[in-house]
Every structure is written in C-alpha cells, then in structure tokens.
C-alpha cells in the first residue's frame, strides 16, 4: 500500500504543485490520478519513487517512509512507465527489458529469458525482440515500456500518461491489455492521466486533483460519476455522466424474458398470439438471427421464410447495462437480445426491464 500523508511539494520557484495531499493507493489495485494539466499529478507520482522529494509530509510504502530508502534501491522495486516509453535507443528491445534484472545481478541468460517471457505477455511479437526501439511503432514501444517496468516483477507500478501519445485505437487496446495483465498480476498501480474516460475505465479508485495540487475527490469510478463532490469535478467529468455510469452496473442486473424468442423453424401459424409485438428469431444453435414483427408475419410457413430486421445484442455475463441500453437503442423492437459468451441467446431485455434496472441504479446512487 502507498500512503500519502499530508504531502506538500513546493518547487524552488514557489509553485505549490501538491498541497497537503493525503490518500492511500491500496495494494493490488489501480489508483488513478486525474486532473487538468498542471494540477500536480506527475509531481505526486514521482514522489513515490523519490524522483522528487516532498517539501512536507511523508510518502509511505507499506508503512515505510520512502525517504529512508536509498533511491536507486527503492526504484528497482518500482516499475515506472512514461509517455514516450523512454526506451534506450541504443539497446535492442530484449535488452531494454532485461535492464533492471541485469542491475539486480541476474545472469544474462536468465534476464533475457525473463525479458522474452514479458514481451510475450504484453502481447508483442517475439520477432521484434532483436530490433531497436526506432524500428517499432509508438504503440509497440509503449508495450515494451510496460514490459520493461514489469521485468523485475516489482510489486508497485507507476504509470505517467503512458498511453497518451498513441492514437485512439491503439490506446484502447493498450488499456485493455493493461486490465488483462493486472487481472493476472495484481500489482499496486498508480496511473496518471488527464483523460477522464481513461481514468474511469482503468481505475479501481480515481483521485481527481484540482490545479494548485488539491485533492478534489477520491472514489471508485461509479460513485465518482454518480456523486461528484463539487462543480469542479462535475464539470471535469463532462457529459454523458449518466450513461457512462451504467458501465459499472453489470448486465446480470437486468431481468430477462424468455417468452419473446422463437426458433427459425417455428411455424408462423403458432406465433400469432406471441407475448409481444416483436419476436427474436434464433437459429438451430440458439444464435439470434434478428427481429420479426408479429403483426407483419405472413399467413403461413416457418420463420425461416421471413427476412428478420437487424438487432442489437449484449453479452450478459460480461457487458454492462450501458451495452444493454445501447443494444435496445439499436433494435427496431426497442428490446435487446442478451447472449452468452458463445453468442447464444439467453433471453430478451425489454425496455421495461431496463427501466427497472436503471431505477435501481438511480435509487442506489442517490440513496
């Protein structure tokens, strides 16, 4: 656990970058520092590995004041990832990753094996290992940066806007990679970003800082979106706060109806008295084919003869209410089809069911 205990940082020119910051970054969780430019995020982060020392207060690592630890030793136990990756241009990718193990006295073979293992783990093609950094794309470099920080298996990882220099598509994949890695590794991660979407997506807890180095709010993302502490935070969170909040409500929360589906082989004749105006048509494996409007069904034949309208699905076991809502909005029936991981329909979410679930959220959020 990392603890900020009344930490203030005043620079030589008088700028107060961090002002009496007290917070905890719990072990095994991702704590995100977010806030506008110049609010002291980087400064706070760098006080953890003593790249900067606080003017007042203490930073504790598992209860030990970091200023009592020799900086290089401290830093070897803390992974550090920065925006431009900071790879050593004169070393091959694999040697870049093996740097810290080397410093720690591992032998060459072991360090390189470890490096290769990590490159694989962060999703890099091992063919890149013998290249130099300039031969990699920005996103690949950033992956190497993460691998390098993980090389000595440090319990703590500091990441300063690591993904902000890459384009949105790559960025998304890096974020997902990080979440996947964290699920395996359970590091204590402090992550800095100025992008609130990234903060909300990655953070177990999000600390919103305000210019002048004050902590404006520290909460889990759902709470942050539901109950911003003040106008600054509300403003900073931006629009769609209500919709984004739904991301934190699991799809399981929603009640399913199973009486609104029908196999493609079903005889049209038997469906006239269906439970709703629309029916989801499924193939023989139970995968959705689309919607049919009961009122428009032909006089005879099976559903297989009807051209179904497009549909929206969400994976109930994995997606959030947000996806469910989006799926209802995409369907002509106003209902979403819930599917399992294999894509088989589990049932239909009507707008009423969604409203119920939303009501619970709204109620919960404002209780």
């Amino acid at each position, binding site marked *: 656990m990392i603890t900020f205990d009344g930490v203030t940082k005043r620079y030589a020119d008088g700028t107060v970058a961090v002002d009496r910051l007290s917070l905890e970054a719990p072990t095994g969780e991702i704590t995100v520092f977010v806030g506008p430019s110049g609010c002291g995020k980087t400064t706070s982060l760098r006080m953890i590995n003593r*790249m900067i020392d606080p003017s007042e207060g203490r930073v504790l690592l598992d209860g030990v004041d970091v200023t009592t630890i020799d900086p290089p030793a401290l*830093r070897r136990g803390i992974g550090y990832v*920065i925006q431009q990756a900071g790879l050593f241009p004169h070393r091959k990718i694999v040697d870049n990753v093996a740097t810290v193990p080397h410093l720690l006295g591992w032998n060459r073979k072991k360090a390189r094996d470890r490096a290769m293992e990590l490159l694989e783990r962060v999703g890099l093609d091992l063919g890149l290992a013998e290249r130099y950094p300039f031969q990699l794309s920005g996103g690949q470099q950033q992956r190497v940066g993460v691998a390098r920080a993980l090389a000595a298996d440090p319990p703590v990882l500091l990441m300063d806007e690591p993904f902000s220099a890459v384009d949105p598509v790559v960025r998304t994949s890096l974020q997902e990679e990080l979440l996947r890695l964290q699920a395996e590794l359970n590091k204590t991660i402090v992550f800095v970003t100025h992008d609130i979407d990234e903060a909300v997506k990655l953070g177990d807890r999000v600390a919103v800082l305000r210019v002048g180095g004050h902590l404006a709010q520290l909460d889990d993302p759902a709470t942050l979106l539901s109950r911003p502490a003040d106008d600054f935070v509300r403003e900073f969170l931006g629009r769609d706060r209500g919709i984004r909040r739904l991301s934190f409500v699991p799809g399981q929360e929603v009640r399913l109806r199973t009486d609104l589906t029908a196999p493609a082989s079903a005889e049209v004749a038997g469906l006239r008295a269906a439970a709703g105006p629309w029916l989801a048509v499924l193939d023989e494996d139970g995968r959705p084919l689309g919607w049919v409007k009961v009122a428009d069904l032909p006089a005879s034949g099976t559903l297989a003869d009807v051209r179904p309208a497009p549909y929206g699905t969400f994976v109930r076991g994995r997606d959030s209410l947000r996806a469910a809502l989006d799926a209802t909005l995409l369907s002509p029936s106003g209902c979403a089809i819930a599917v399992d991981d294999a894509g088989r329909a589990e049932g239909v979410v009507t707008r009423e069911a969604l409203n119920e679930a939303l009501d619970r959220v709204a109620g919960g959020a404002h209780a």
Partner: protein
Amino acid sequence: MNWLVDFFGDPANWSGPDGIPVRLAEHLQFSAIALLLAMLVALPLGLWIGHTGRGALLVVLSANAARALPTLGLLVLVVLLAGLGTDLPVLIPLVALAVPPILVNTYEGVRGVDPDLRDAAYGMGLRGGQVLGRVLVPVALPLILLGLRLAAIQVVATATVAAFVGLGGLGRYVVDGFATNDYPRTLAGAVLVALLALLVQLVFVLIQRLVVSPGVRRRNAVR
C-alpha cells in the same frame, strides 16, 4: 602533377631522417599525443558538465574563445617561454586547438539526450554514474565521436605549423619547400597531410560503425 610523381618517385624521399616514413611517423606521433591530451581534458569535463549541467555557460563561452586562439602565436610564445628541450610545449597549442570541438560536442551530446530517457533511467534505479555510462554516453556517442573527428582533422592539418619552430612532421616539407623555393616539396607535404587527414576521417567512420549502436541516430555536429 608531374612534380608530385617526381617527388614520390624519388627513393631519397623515402629514407633517412627526412624521409616520408619518418616524417609521417613524427606527424602522427605528436598529433596523436595532442589529441590524447585534449581528450583527457575535454572528455571528462564535457561529460561532467553535460551530465550535471553545472558551469555549462562558462565552458561553452571559453571553448569559443579557445577556438579563437591563434595557433601560431601560441606556438611561438610557448616555445620562447619553455624552450625546445622537449616537444611538450609545442603540443600545448595543438591541445588548445583540439579541446573546443571535443568539449562542445561532448557537452552538447550528453545534454541533448532526451530528458525522458534520463528520467526513465533514473526511474529504473540506475545510479548517477550508471545513467551516464550506460545511457547518456552510448546515446551521445555519435556526437562525441564527431567532436573527436573534427579535433583530429584540425590537429593533423595544423600540426604543419609546428615545423616553423623546428619540429619534424610533414610540416617540414611545407616549410622547407617554401624556404628553398621547392614547390613540389611543399605540394607533397600538403598532399600527405590531406591524405592523413582523410585517413583519420576514415578511421573515425570505421570506429563509429563499430562502437555506435545501430539504434542511435545521428544528430547535427557543432564544429
């Protein structure tokens, strides 16, 4: 051109104390010593200043002033003051000539390393010396070598002037040729010096190939 063929074709010019091999060896010897001395002064200083950022302005300014030092004036002054007993005094102006390019390029090389890179290095737990030795120097190497190369060329070309105060080396051909109105000799001296300078260039290019990591790309030199 015939002159040159005659000069180089004359076996007399290939032997004895005034023969090409001896003069070449002499020239190489004090050029190398001067360069070595300059490296001893300028490399550590440039690395230290580039690394710590301390005293940078002073050094850059004085390096520029040192560039202005007239070699000939310094040479005669030093020889008058210290005598010709050893070659050492003669080396002083050459060292003064070689220090600025080495110093400035080393300093610029180290200082110009991407600050993020330093940051990353410190953040990984490298100590000051390790950051310098394992990161800053390898990355600054192309520029450092370039400084050395420029210095070497200038020393080789300018060492010619040392013949004026009686020193050996290829400058002898130039000075003696002038004194005896023997143009082929002067020309031969010039050609030999130029060839030597080009050879030095070539050697540095080879060294660069060998020691600079392919991952490091070139930056602009400061002469």
